[in-house]
């Protein structure tokens, strides 16, 4: 990625950022460093920058947007699908013209005044990032092996030193006192603290961290996940396979099918956009269970399942921002007293078995379906016919090759003559 210089505007949320080496206005063949389109947060301070910090989970250098007032933002790249290539056409902003270009934007307007086309239709969106995630690499043990040892209490500066070693930009950012105070606050929320004289010493506390993560995940799940994620991670996972074959054992059939309709109605209810509040969804599903089920459903609480699944999806997304050395301890802590995933696991296992069954049934029903058998029959018959024809031709050939006397011998009346094999026993075939 080209090195870019951010020029946040005070009012507009959409802002064009030009790289330093902007192509001249005359039609260039194609700029080596084209403009990129960013969507930046509103009302950021003048000192906001794009900085390079090491990614909390992967430790690779990654761009973040930093505003001393609002904190860190991470960039999400939204690209057009490769199958349908697109470009941006940037028209000169009218408002700018009306207001007169601001001092910092002079350069930009000069280049985009006549319009600008970027080849790649990428859009970078800055979304807020909790400082906590940037801090975790410093707080986390360096490797899983050391996890068992007691971690030392360290001062805030010591922790930050380890961070700045990897991300030199951070050092400059830390000069702003507001940021340091915010860091201290976030660190407190996940650490055990001891007072050492006038300084506070921090050490990562796993229960606190898990609680913080869980709280975050709960918030993510509370209003439902974004529609596309909901579809991918929740609906499809809870999709009950359609069992289309009539089954013989009606006793099992009733309960299973009712259950199937339960969860189906459930998932459809869940799939409705997030403006539906969670409570209404729940009531709907309970209604559905009460009306459709003949016998009590096999699974205990289907209405809790989607929420649990959402929670787990949220947590797994959060884990992608957390150093891998911490994953094991976090996963281990996510058990019964804090959050109980067992009903979800049971339900998913049940669904898996149902899916397997339906797959098996489908393959069976495919085999016995009329069309298939007809096809097979036709194939087989054609094969048999071909075989017969081949044999007939062969026989004819043989017959022609037969000598006249052999043919005459065939006409001999052999009635009353026993076959020689009835007189002489067949010799066991000797291997030559």
């Amino acid at each position, binding site marked *: 990625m080209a090195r870019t210089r951010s020029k946040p505007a005070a009012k507009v949320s959409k802002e064009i950022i030009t790289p330093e080496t902007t192509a001249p206005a005359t039609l260039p063949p194609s700029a080596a460093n084209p403009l990129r389109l960013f969507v930046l947060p509103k009302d950021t301070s003048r000192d906001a920058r794009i900085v390079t910090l090491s990614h909390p989970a992967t430790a690779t250098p990654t761009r973040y947007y930093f505003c001393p007032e609002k904190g860190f933002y991470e960039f999400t790249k939204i690209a057009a699908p490769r199958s349908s290539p697109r470009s941006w056409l940037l028209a000169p902003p009218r408002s700018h013209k009306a207001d007169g270009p601001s001092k910092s934007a002079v350069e930009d307007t000069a280049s985009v005044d006549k319009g600008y086309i970027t080849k790649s239709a990428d859009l970078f969106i800055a979304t807020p990032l909790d400082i906590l995630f940037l801090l975790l690499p410093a707080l986390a043990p360096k490797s899983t092996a050391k996890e068992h040892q007691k971690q030392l209490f360290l001062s805030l500066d010591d922790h930050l030193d380890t961070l700045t070693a990897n991300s030199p930009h951070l050092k400059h950012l830390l000069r702003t006192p507001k940021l340091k105070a915010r860091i201290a606050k976030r660190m407190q929320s996940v650490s055990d603290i001891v007072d050492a004289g006038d300084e506070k010493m921090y050490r990562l506390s796993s229960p606190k961290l898990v609680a913080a993560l869980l709280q975050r995940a709960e918030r993510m799940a509370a209003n439902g996940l974004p529609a596309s994620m909901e579809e991918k991670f929740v609906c499809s996972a809870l999709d009950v396979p359609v069992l289309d074959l009539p089954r013989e054992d009606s006793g099992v059939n009733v309960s299973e099918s009712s259950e199937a309709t339960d969860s189906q109605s459930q998932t459809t209810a869940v799939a409705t956009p997030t403006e539906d509040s969670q409570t209404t969804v729940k009531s709907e599903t309970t209604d559905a269970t009460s009306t459709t089920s003949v016998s009590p459903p096999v699974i205990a609480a289907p209405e809790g399942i989607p929420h649990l699944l959402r929670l787990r999806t949220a947590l797994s997304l959060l884990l992608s921002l957390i150093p891998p050395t911490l994953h094991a301890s976090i996963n281990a802590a996510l058990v019964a007293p804090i959050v109980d995933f067992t009903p979800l696991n049971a339900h998913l296992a049940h669904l898996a078995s149902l899916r397997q069954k339906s797959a098996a049934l489908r393959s069976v029903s495919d085999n016995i379906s009329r069309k298939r058998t007809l096809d097979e029959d036709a194939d087989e018959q054609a094969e048999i016919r071909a075989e017969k024809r081949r044999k007939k031709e062969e026989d004819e050939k043989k017959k022609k090759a037969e000598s006249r006397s052999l043919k005459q011998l065939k006409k001999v009346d052999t009635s009353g003559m026993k*076959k020689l094999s009835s*007189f002489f026993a067949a010799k066991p075939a000797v291997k030559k």
Partner: protein
Amino acid sequence: MLEARLEQANLLKKVVDAIKDLVQDCNFDCNDSGIALQAMDNSHVALVSMMLKSESFSPFRCDRNIALGINLTSLTKVLRAAQNEDILTLKAEDAPDVVNLVFESAESDRISEYDIKLMDIDQEHLGIPETEYAATISMPSAEFQRICRDLMALSESVSIECSKEGVKFACQGDIGSGSVTLRSHTNVDKPEMNVEIDLTEPVSLTFSLKYLVGFCKASSLSGQVKLCLSNEVPLLVEYALANNSYLRFYLAPKIGDEE
């Protein structure tokens, strides 16, 4: 590796000639004791068994047991190219695709060589026990051939009755009936004209003449033919060859259906 040299191609020509009207394809089983053949006709009522002992060849070499599946019509075609007096050499590899025949003319230095493609023949082999027959008749092969041909004009089947009196070949057809009776007879000057009847009990059996006429094609192989009969047992027609080699035919009797 098989290499078998026959002093006279005649022998093989005649053997194949005698068999080819009974069997279409058959295996020539070669081992160190010689070349053997066993095959049944299409109706499985007649069986031909040939044994050409290794002593009949000079030299004879067979390292491994080989089955040469040969179409007799093809073999006849090739053998037609050989003169009766030619020296015939049979050759085959251990796992052969072809059998190689070389004919060497005794008089001139003419050498002709033929390859016959072999075929895989799935044949059932019958174990034929040594049997004590109730009646054994030796007679000139030409005489037997003549009887069969004559009676064939009247009927399809012949009854062979063997008693103390002699052996009676009788038949009954649409135009009438006929019979030929032979008695034991010894010709001192021409021993091949002898008729010997060795009888332990009287025998009367009926056989298909068509088949017997077919067997008689081997008459040129040997001056004498031996008929062995027992009640309810296939007839054995044997043409003895030199060096204990033989050509034998078995024919199932007609039972019940007297016509």
